[in-house]
């Protein structure tokens, strides 16, 4: 009871602090919005580079609701070719295409990364032979591979998926390799004493014990795959969110560009936070 009493007192003391933090946040946001609006109205910067908040809100509304079109999706499944058509605002068609590209990129790049990471983490010799290559290639700017991806996979979604997959591969592989090395040896010995085969050891011991490392790797991988895919779309594509951004730039439709960037940032940060919560990872400290 005394313990509970102390805890309650502490939380009561902490309550006004939380209130002041919220107030400060509101004040910062309000100041930023007010400054923006003043800049837009004053014309100190080039007209239209800083459009008014109302114009951006209107563009955001239009982006999410208007220009209804038929979105087609094709999925070849062997001899059967699934095709459907959905009528929806143009933005969601582009979002759907980008999401599909990123999803496939994560599936391919993340899957390969996980496999390579498991092998490198479990085998010391292979790790010393090949992990430095993966480690040092990881931070190179992947977008420069895009011309090669175009040659190999064409101008369509293939080259964008490949860009995302290359970007996603490295963080997942490195994270998985480090995750395998951090597994408690006792767990592996328990598996051996139960005569678990390689498949059982991987699925019953390695993967559950590496959950946090895999999720952290996937979190980083998805973030980088998103950047890789979208950058490829901005460079050469007529479909997807990246192409929407570059279209808005070409037409100098600044409110629409801001609106697209806002939606994109909200989605990216939201996905990152969601995956971090799934793995109980602090997104601030784990970069």
């Amino acid at each position: 009871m005394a313990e509970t009493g102390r805890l309650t007192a502490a939380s009561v003391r902490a309550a006004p602090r939380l209130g002041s933090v919220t107030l400060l946040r509101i004040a910062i946001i309000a100041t930023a919005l007010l400054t923006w609006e003043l800049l837009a109205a004053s014309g100190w910067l080039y007209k239209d580079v800083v459009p008014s908040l109302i114009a951006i809100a209107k563009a955001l509304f239009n982006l999410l609701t208007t220009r209804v079109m038929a979105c087609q999706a094709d999925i070849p499944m062997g001899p059967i070719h699934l095709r459907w058509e959905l009528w929806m605002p143009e933005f969601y068609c582009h979002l759907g295409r980008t999401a599909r590209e990123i999803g496939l990129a994560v599936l391919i790049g993340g899957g390969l990364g996980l496999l390579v990471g498991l092998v490198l983490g479990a085998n010391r010799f292979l790790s010393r032979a090949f992990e430095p290559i993966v480690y040092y290639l990881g931070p190179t700017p992947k977008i420069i591979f895009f011309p090669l991806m175009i040659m190999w996979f064409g101008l369509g979604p293939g080259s964008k998926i490949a860009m995302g997959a290359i970007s996603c591969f490295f963080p997942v592989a490195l994270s998985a390799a480090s995750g395998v090395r951090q597994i408690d040896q006792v767990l592996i010995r328990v598996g051996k004493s139960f005569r678990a085969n390689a498949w059982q050891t991987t699925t019953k011991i390695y993967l559950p014990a590496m959950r946090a490392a895999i999720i952290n790797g996937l979190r980083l991988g998805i973030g980088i795959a998103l950047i890789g895919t979208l950058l490829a779309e901005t460079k050469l594509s007529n479909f997807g969110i990246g192409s929407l951004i570059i279209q808005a730039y070409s037409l100098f439709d600044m409110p629409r560009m801001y609106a697209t960037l806002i939606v994109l940032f909200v989605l990216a940060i939201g996905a990152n936070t969601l995956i971090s919560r799934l793995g109980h990872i602090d997104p601030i400290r784990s970069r």
Partner: protein
Amino acid sequence: MAANGNMTWQKHGPAIVGCAVIATAIAVIELLIRVDLISRFVMPMPSEIAVSFERVIVEENIPRRFLLTAGECFGAGILVTVIGISLGALLHRLPLLRQATETWVGALASAPTVLMYPLFMVIFGRNATTIIMMGFAAGLAPVILKTVEGLSGARRVLINVGRSFNLTERQLFWKILLPAALPTIFVGIRLGLIFALINVVGVEFLINFGGLGQLVAELAERYDLPGTYATICFVILISVLFFMAMEKAERWLRPGA
């Protein structure tokens, strides 16, 4: 003798195997292209790429382009370091502000800031300023976060020693907090500079302006395949060397890490 050989193999064996596998892969690709199993219009022969290195370095003026990219990285690095450390110190000094904004800075670190390059082009134009500002935007968050982490992690005993010497707040920061936090801050600077380098080269490629990134785009547009591959190899080499140098510097600053 056998034990000695075994020791040498254990020490250098993995590196030798790694290099041998890469060399074999290159040889196999060369062979597959020569027998037309891989189209030479998609992938040039590795021997052609090796030959084109000299041509690219001389004809495309790689040293000048390298200096241009390095200069942009340097500009972004200076901005990231000065502004990132200042903002980090400010957040450390004002705990309420830190509580209110640290999650935002974390969110900024995970946001795809590089996609704002069309916006930066509108604001700054298609020039080096856009590239430097993109590098700066990408590298800022880790420097702020690591500066806050480093300053907050300074040992209490060191701060108490400073207070017992009646140091002013300014002296306490410059003489005790900053030196104690320097190794952690450097981790942030290293991450920030790597993000800046990635973005600088990436934006050069995307907006077709500047140094090495532009060269990749330009050679690809000219369909000079050996040249494109050689330049990509060159960019990879530069970024790997840069990454290794940053790691060495970090190890020097954090010998125990």
